[in-house]
């Protein structure tokens, strides 16, 4: 049956049809929907793991046990899972194992623009790159064939435009695969020096064999053009841009296997055209290979290694005419993302901003505390970096910054990689203060459960990590819970904990306002006659509040009645709705 599917849903369908029966992932845009779609197939066991490393190791365990497995993550998640990645490359698999990684060129929802293909090369693993949903489904299936034929984990590389675009796929039935027998094999599966030394040559040999396979695989294809003056080597979403603007004019080598690359395939293709141009997003990965094997080509001298490509960029680079757009004569203000009306992070951030603290931030919706008017965050690096970072910051300042510096981290991020940082604070004794923003969900990626919510990926009740208990067990004696809707309480507790001569954790607890079970109160009411236009209420950056003709106005369709603003108004103009 023909249907429209997101690239991520199609990849999930491919896993299903290939008989995959174990999936463990950590959410991250643009990879999240693969695992959410997988969760709808009852034949597949699927879970959210606390982080990508755990997910990959669990998927490896399932492969070892003889079942086809998958783990999915965003590009920066692969950094977290890099440790097992490089070594399961040595052990190989029992049943097929596929690792989904989704890059985000253009950084629509990411902190960097890294190119995951370097991981395939560095870890010596094959990587497939689909260019649309049809490819995503087929490549996911092919990845298992490749994995089992060559005894290797296989990387399936998505990018935002493939992951989040719907295109037409044709589905087929699931092919159940029998569980493979697990046979103890220490020399293959125990990677200590003596055994690993014997595995490394096998890995190198395997890579050569896959390159040989790649030369004739239909995962790569040549589309012959009418004009032989230029031949284009491309992969992924760039293939679509090339076809969009050049149609059948130039010959195209569309690579589905982006690592290892086949020297023969590329040289054969290059011999049919006068000039080779490599069109790829981010780094000149394929281009570098071409140059190394002596194939002259152009690439990053024309197409930037920064940001996404698009059809106009490709047209421009190839000298093909395109229509420029026509802008209106007006200054259009930006519309950056904002914390939602009723967001529990807002009240807490207002206090941090008011107290002019150094705030070592982390990854999630609450990164938005960094933008105007709150401007409350000093640094954001990666998952967990707040807790470790605040410790280093305070140690480097010989403790002098302890009274004015905090870490902020969400519940899911704390589970992901905040715990070990907190152990470090306790063990190496900095009087650091960590604030856990517990909104009872993984927010930014669209409401995924995590070990603190009490539910699993499938929505079934699950064991719930006791945040207070965990922090105490780590050695934090002072663990306090505040309601971020209560400004005075937050301010009081933060001040007390900053003064404390030992490490402390403050849990700011209030569910995300977008959760279905959260009940809103009556919207706030403004008495215009009492409003003195002081704009105190504008300091919290609430999208439901604006100034009209110098007076505060509440948008009652947005206001959730959190009443953070009513606590800030000194003139009683903002009143709790009745």
């Amino acid at each position, binding site marked *: 049956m023909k249907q429209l599917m997101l690239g991520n849903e199609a990849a999930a369908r491919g896993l299903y049809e290939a008989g995959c029966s174990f999936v463990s992932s950590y959410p991250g845009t643009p990879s999240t929907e693969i695992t959410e779609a997988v969760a709808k197939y009852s034949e597949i066991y699927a879970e959210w793991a606390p982080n990508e490393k755990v997910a990959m190791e669990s998927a490896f365990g399932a492969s070892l046990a003889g079942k086809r497995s998958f783990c999915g993550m965003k590009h920066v998640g692969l950094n977290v899972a890099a440790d097992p990645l490089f070594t399961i490359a040595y052990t190989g698999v029992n049943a097929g194992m596929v690792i989904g990684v989704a890059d985000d060129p253009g950084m629509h929802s990411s902190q960097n623009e890294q190119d995951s293909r370097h991981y395939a090369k560095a870890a010596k693993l094959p990587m497939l790159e689909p260019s649309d949903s049809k490819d995503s489904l087929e490549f996911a299936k092919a990845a298992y064939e490749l994995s089992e034929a060559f005894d290797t984990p296989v990387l399936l590389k998505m990018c935002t*435009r493939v992951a989040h675009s719907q295109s037409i796929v044709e589905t087929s039935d699931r092919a159940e695969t029998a569980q493979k027998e697990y046979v103890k094999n220490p020399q293959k599966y125990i990677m200590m020096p003596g055994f690993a030394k014997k595995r490394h040559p096998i890995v190198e040999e395997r890579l050569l064999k896959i390159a040989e396979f790649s030369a004739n695989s239909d995962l790569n294809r040549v589309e012959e053009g009418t004009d032989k003056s230029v031949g284009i080597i491309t992969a992924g979403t760039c293939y679509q841009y090339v076809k969009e603007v050049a149609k059948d004019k130039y010959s195209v080598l569309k690579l589905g296997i982006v690592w290892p690359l086949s020297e023969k395939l590329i040289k054969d293709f290059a011999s049919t055209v006068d000039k080779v141009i490599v069109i790829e997003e981010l780094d000149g990965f394929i281009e570098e290979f071409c140059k190394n094997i002596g194939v002259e080509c152009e690439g990053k001298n024309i197409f930037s290694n920064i940001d996404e490509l698009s059809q106009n960029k490709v047209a421009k680079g190839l000298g093909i*005419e395109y229509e420029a757009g026509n802008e209106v004569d007006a200054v259009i203000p930006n*519309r950056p993302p904002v914390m939602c009306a009723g967001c529990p992070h807002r009240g807490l951030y207002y206090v941090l901003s008011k107290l002019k603290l150094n705030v070592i931030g982390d990854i999630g919706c609450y990164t938005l505390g960094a933008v105007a008017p709150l401007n409350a965050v000093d640094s954001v690096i990666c998952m967990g970096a707040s807790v470790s970072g605040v410790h280093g910051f305070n140690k480097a300042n010989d403790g002098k910054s302890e009274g004015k510096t905090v870490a902020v981290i969400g519940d899911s991020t704390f589970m992901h990689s905040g715990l070990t940082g907190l152990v470090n604070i306790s063990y190496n004794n900095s009087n650091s203060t960590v604030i856990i923003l517990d909104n009872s969900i993984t927010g930014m990626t*669209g409401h995924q459960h995590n070990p603190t919510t009490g539910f699993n990926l499938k929505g079934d009740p699950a064991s719930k990590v006791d945040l207070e208990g965990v922090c105490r067990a780590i050695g934090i004696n002072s663990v306090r819970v505040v309601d971020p809707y209560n400004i005075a309480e937050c301010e009081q507790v933060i001040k007390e904990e900053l003064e404390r001569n030992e490490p402390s954790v403050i849990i700011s607890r209030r569910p995300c306002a977008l959760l279905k079970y959260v009940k809103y109160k009556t919207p706030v009411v403004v008495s215009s006659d009492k409003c003195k236009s002081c704009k105190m209420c504008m300091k919290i950056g609430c999208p439901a509040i604006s100034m009209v003709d110098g007076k505060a106005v509440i948008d009652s369709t947005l206001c959730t009645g959190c009443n953070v603003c009513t606590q800030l108004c000194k003139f009683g103009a903002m009143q709790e709705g009745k």
Partner: protein
Amino acid sequence: MKTNDTKNIMIVGVGGQGSLLASKLLGRLLLTKGYDVKVSEVHGMSQRGGSVVTYVRFGNKVYSPVIDEGEADFIVSFELLEAARWTKFLKNGGKIITNTQQVNPMPVVTGAAEYPKELVSKMEEKGFSVDAIDALDLAESAGSSKAVNLVLMGRLSKYFDFTEDEWMTAIENSVPPKFLEMNKKAFSLGLNA
């Protein structure tokens, strides 16, 4: 010059306004009509009240999932400023269908920027044909402010050769049964606005 039979529709708005339902509905309809279809969405951070865009492309063979500057036949906008923001993506003679509702972005809320005035006439000055309708008002009279998407789809349907039955079937396949009548009403109000 690129030659293409592909039609390009951009659905733009403010994160959280419900543009994903509109693209889902369009995608389903176009698929049943036998077109090649691609729909590109943005998930993640911009859904938190940021500027969002969804691309819908259809024709005999569609390659790129996105629409670039100078390519869109239609911009369907849930909010006035967003229509103006994306006009550069319209081709010459392109059509803008916009809700006249204004949602202030944070730089306007904080006073760092102004919401530009007379945007509809400014867009018309550039030679674009603009259908500006109070879709929020029509949606509310259909029964819910959340039906702005169906009002806008109703308006868009005027410019396509698909029958009302075909649109209605696509709506039935895209919205929960209990909201079906309200959504159909919103669609009709948009069509006849």
